[in-house]
């Protein structure tokens, strides 16, 4: 037959392919071996460049070989004339580009390019930007390239406005682009610096509204795309608050002073980061955490000498200075009083609104409305539900409490995979609300019973609480942070699922502990209670350990000072 092609059979093809592969493998291995030998022998010359480019050209992810190349280039830099070096660099840049075409997501290749550009006396940044644009044209979500672009833009001092326009164009093409949204969050504060809020502060309202509209377009178009929701969260979020001293408490009985901070901090025992001034004179004290472990903690304690607490003077003034945070607090212990304190009110400081917050609540209000609108269209969208909850928290946590709980229920139903996370989040919000309510009522009694709590948060806020009721929740443990409750006298934890009592330790004033109907298995679990000197009443009824023969004896031995143990 004329013109008909003769073609190898599949066996022939397979055989040819096999031989070819074998051949390639042989070459690859021997080249690798040669490079390593030369490197070991210190023969870092151009032949190493040549050999490594053979291998890297096929497999750019061979990081060790990029290191070899760096060593060679560093050595050649010392030996070559500037003209020769220029040629070398040009070849290297071309080679890097060809490797990026093989694998546009090769860590080693991008890193080598960074390194090389950083060494050049006169790098051509315009060409590098163009290279980034080309690679992002192919894959607009290549975060390696975005990283490199940020490096180049910073080096070349590209105006943020231009880079912002670039992110615009890529978001227009495909808004599902974490890198692009993230880059915006870096560029916008640079473009609109707000003197009051530091480098990562808020945006002016007009800019903020424009961004909110943009991102709303994205999540109304595709509410299941996470990238837009994350950017939305950033837009409505606020900068980390500065470290602050929240509360100062002095107790005459226990002869100690307690400090609580806005976040866990480490107070060195020798370094003078936390100074105590009593009656205008500096007092050297030893700081410790309530659990005695001296790890970063919200709460730090020091013992006071009796001279600082004597009842001769009408009052003692205690001033604590946190030097690194440049903040201080003062409290007074009056004659005849057992304790004295000074505290920032959670109600005034919006302590719990750290997730989202904008100065203008109108912005939040309108965001809440659009999210609710979207939620009606997409009742099952978890991102929307979560955002609605966060917005309600930011606007008015107490007003929206009931509605929030309903949203949590829906959210848990549509996103069962994250049920535990949502329970914890819900617990956190409920504790926050209860703390707020307690402070509005100006009492030291905290009611947290029947709230379905799964976790205890914000315990550092409860420094002054004397009565805490946690009954009828789903708690499984009393965490170490509970040790911060220095004033606690009565703790009710009936009807939970408590298995461990690690947190009930060193509570100087605890008298009653009610633990009915929990899951305490062994008398040994009660060991921490031995460190609570004033404990007199302990109710353990309805716990598995009550079934064990000899429990009463065991407990009496373990807790000799507790006069009444009910089992």
């Amino acid at each position, binding site marked *: 037959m*004329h*013109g008909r*092609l003769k073609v190898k059979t599949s066996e022939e093809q397979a055989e*040819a392919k096999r031989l*070819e592969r074998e*051949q390639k493998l042989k070459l690859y291995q021997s080249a690798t071996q040669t490079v390593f030998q030369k490197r070991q022998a210190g023969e870092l010359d151009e032949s190493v460049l040549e050999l490594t480019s*053979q291998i890297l050209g096929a497999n750019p992810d061979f990081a060790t070989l990029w290191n070899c190349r760096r060593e060679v280039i560093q050595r050649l830099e010392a030996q070559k004339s500037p003209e020769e070096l220029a040629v070398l660099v040009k070849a290297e840049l071309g080679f890097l580009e060809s490797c990026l075409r093989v694998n546009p997501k090769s860590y080693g290749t991008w890193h080598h390019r960074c390194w090389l550009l950083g060494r050049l006396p006169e790098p051509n940044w315009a060409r590098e930007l163009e290279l980034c644009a080309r690679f992002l044209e192919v894959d607009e979500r290549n975060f390696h390239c975005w990283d490199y672009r940020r490096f180049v833009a910073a080096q070349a001092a590209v105006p943020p406005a231009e880079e912002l326009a670039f992110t615009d164009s890529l978001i*227009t093409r495909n808004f599902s682009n974490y890198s692009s949204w993230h880059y915006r969050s870096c560029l916008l504060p640079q473009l609109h610096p707000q003197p009051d809020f530091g480098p990562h502060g808020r945006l002016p309202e007009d800019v903020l509204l424009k961004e909110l509209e943009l991102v709303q377009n994205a999540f109304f178009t595709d509410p299941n795309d996470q990238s837009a929701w994350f950017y939305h969260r950033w837009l409505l979020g606020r900068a980390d608050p500065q470290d602050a001293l929240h509360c100062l408490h002095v107790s005459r009985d226990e002869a100690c002073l307690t400090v609580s901070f806005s976040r866990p901090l480490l107070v060195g025992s020798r370094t003078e980061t936390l100074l105590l001034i009593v009656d205008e004179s500096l007092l050297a004290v030893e700081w410790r955490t309530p659990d005695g472990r001296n790890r970063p903690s919200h709460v730090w304690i020091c013992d006071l000498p009796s001279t600082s607490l004597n009842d001769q003077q009408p009052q003692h003034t205690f001033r604590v200075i946190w030097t690194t945070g440049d903040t201080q607090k003062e409290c007074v212990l009056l004659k005849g009083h057992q304790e004295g304190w000074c505290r920032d009110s959670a109600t005034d400081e919006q302590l719990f609104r750290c997730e989202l917050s904008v100065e203008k609540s109108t912005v939040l209000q309108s965001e809440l409305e659009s999210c609710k609108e979207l939620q009606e269209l997409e009742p099952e969208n978890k991102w929307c539900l979560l955002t609605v909850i966060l917005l309600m928290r930011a606007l008015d946590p107490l007003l929206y409490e009931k509605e929030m709980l309903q949203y949590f229920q829906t959210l848990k139903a549509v996103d069962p995979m994250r049920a535990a996370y949502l329970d914890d989040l819900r617990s956190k919000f409920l504790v926050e609300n209860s703390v707020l309510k307690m402070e509005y009522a100006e009492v030291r009694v905290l009611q947290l019973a029947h709230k379905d709590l799964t976790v205890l948060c914000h315990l550092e806020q409860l420094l002054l609480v004397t009565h805490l009721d946690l009954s009828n929740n789903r708690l499984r443990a009393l965490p170490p942070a509970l040790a911060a409750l220095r004033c606690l006298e009565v703790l009710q934890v009936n009807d939970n699922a408590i298995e461990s009592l690690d947190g009930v330790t060193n509570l100087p004033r605890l008298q009653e502990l009610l633990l009915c109907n929990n899951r305490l298995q062994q008398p040994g679990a009660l060991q921490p209670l031995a460190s609570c000197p004033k404990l007199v009443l302990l109710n353990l009824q309805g716990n598995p350990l009550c079934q064990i023969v000899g429990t009463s004896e065991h407990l009496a031995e373990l807790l000799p000072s507790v006069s009444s143990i009910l089992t």
Partner: protein
Amino acid sequence: MADNLPSEFDVIVIGTGLPESIIAAACSRSGQRVLHVDSRSYYGGNWASFSFSGLLSWLREYQENRDIVNENPAWEEQILENEEAIALGRNDKTIQHVEVFCYASQDLHDGVEEAGALQKNHASVTSANSTEAGDSACLPTEDESLSTMSCEMPTGQTPSSDPEHALEVNDVDTTGEKENHCDDKTCVASTSEEETNENVPTVEDIAEQPKQNRITYSQIIKEGRRFNIDLVSKVLYSRGLLIDLLIKSNVSRYAEFKNITRILAFREGRVEQVPCSRADVFNSKQLSMVEKRMLMKFLTFCMEYEEHLDEYKDYEKITFSEYLKTQKLTPNLQYFVLHSIAMTSETASSTIDGLKATKNFLHCLGRYGNTPFLFPLYGQGELPQCFCRMCAVFGGIYCLRHSVQCLVVDKESGRCKAIIDQFGQRIMSKHFLVEDSYFSENTCSHVQYRQISRAVLITDRSVLQTDSDQQISILTVPAEESGTSAVRVIELCSSTMTCMKGTYLVHLTCTSSKSAREDLEPVVQKLFTPYTELEIENEEVEKPRLLWALYFNMRDSSDVSRSSYNDLPSNVYVCSGPDCGLGNDNAVKQAETLFQQICPNEEFCPPPPNPEDIILDGDSLQPGASDSSAVLEANSETPKETASLGNPEEPSE
């Protein structure tokens, strides 16, 4: 020279339209000896694309054709006693009601000289063009590709067949004819006006002046080579059968494509962009947030509507447009979905059809860009040629300007056994594929044809201007009265290589109810302003100006069943001309079906073999030999393994 043609083939294909070309390629690919002939001087039949001058000569041919009553029964002597002949038609009757209007200014006196000047310039223009063609290997210089493709083409059978020369002659002739034409059509009064206007840039000329006011007719003539005007206006669905075939068979390497950049709608007298992709919806300024959600929600549902039977089964009995009203869609969203995405009408389709069409549209979205369609650079006429090229690569023989006088049927077996060509040569074959338009009236006397109404416009501006002037748009204009059909408008910019810079080529297509002009002129008037009127009405500036227009009707033979042709032997297969549809699925389906009849059990256009696996003549020892030589080569290079390692890396995984 004609004697050079072999006297026997497996398959003879008559007509070089898309289905014929695909079949020819498929047959040749699976080892059949293929002869592919076309009586015309160009590839593609009614699927062809023409330069501007090419189009004018095509028009002229049709006019002449009508008069030719050429009876040359010389072949009858060749028919033996046990044979019968099926005469093929001499004239193509597929094109009717051709009307041409020129609105761009044409100076009568200049025009005459222009033609002469043109002739002189022509050479340089062509050479510029042909270097381009060399680079991209895509320009449809029919004659060039012809000579490279067919080894035994009887070139230059008549002295006048020099294509370049022929074209030029036509240019001159048609310009003359053109003038007459315009005389008929009320252009006369305006021509003198324009003459004066032309040198004085008018105020209402839009800001972008560098192009220097209006495009004149002589400019169009001069730049005629920049045009590639499709007779049939189609696009490729990104996941349509044709794309799949192009990829599978690797024919795609012979063509280049551009994504249609936007889908437009014509609503309440205005042209607007239809948001159809995720990015469009995100970027749209005309939709409210809630509309965005509702549209996306509905479209997402359509993507997998089959899995949600309960959501639409109650609406199966009603039309798609009624169904859309029951969904949470605002009226403009309903309009977009109905006319621009499903591309149907109020009455035409049921809920299921509409959902299916919407799904198909969405399914194609995003494969190559933000719309579901691709357009072949240099025009739709490229596609048949690509398949012809593949056919030729696998040994098919090509003859253009080669007509077939009759099919010879063996009386006893009732099967066709040969053709007799224009030189009286008898060429034997087993299978015969004939495109519908080649049959004589005797054969088609019982066939009922539908008609397609077509208009080709050259305009100076896009129907919807944006930052970029390089937009390729599809616009559907719904039918105004029942009984007529929606008009599909495809607007091509110059970067599609189908028109000169500063102009747009606009194709209008609909199923005919009357003549093309009667069917399409109302839509043309809605969208465009004739160049001449514009001088008077300043406020109409919004609409693009019409420089030139052509209307014609094309016969639609796509739905004709084989049995309606008279007395066809079983081994004569009929290929239809272009259908009215937007995509090319019809042609591919037809080609595949016919191919399966000719070559049962053969794969349809399988991927070509890897060049490395092809065994060249006299190379029977090749596999072993090449392997051992590779080993030798490698061995000899082991000391400096380097050199050979560079090459083999790319096929490694």
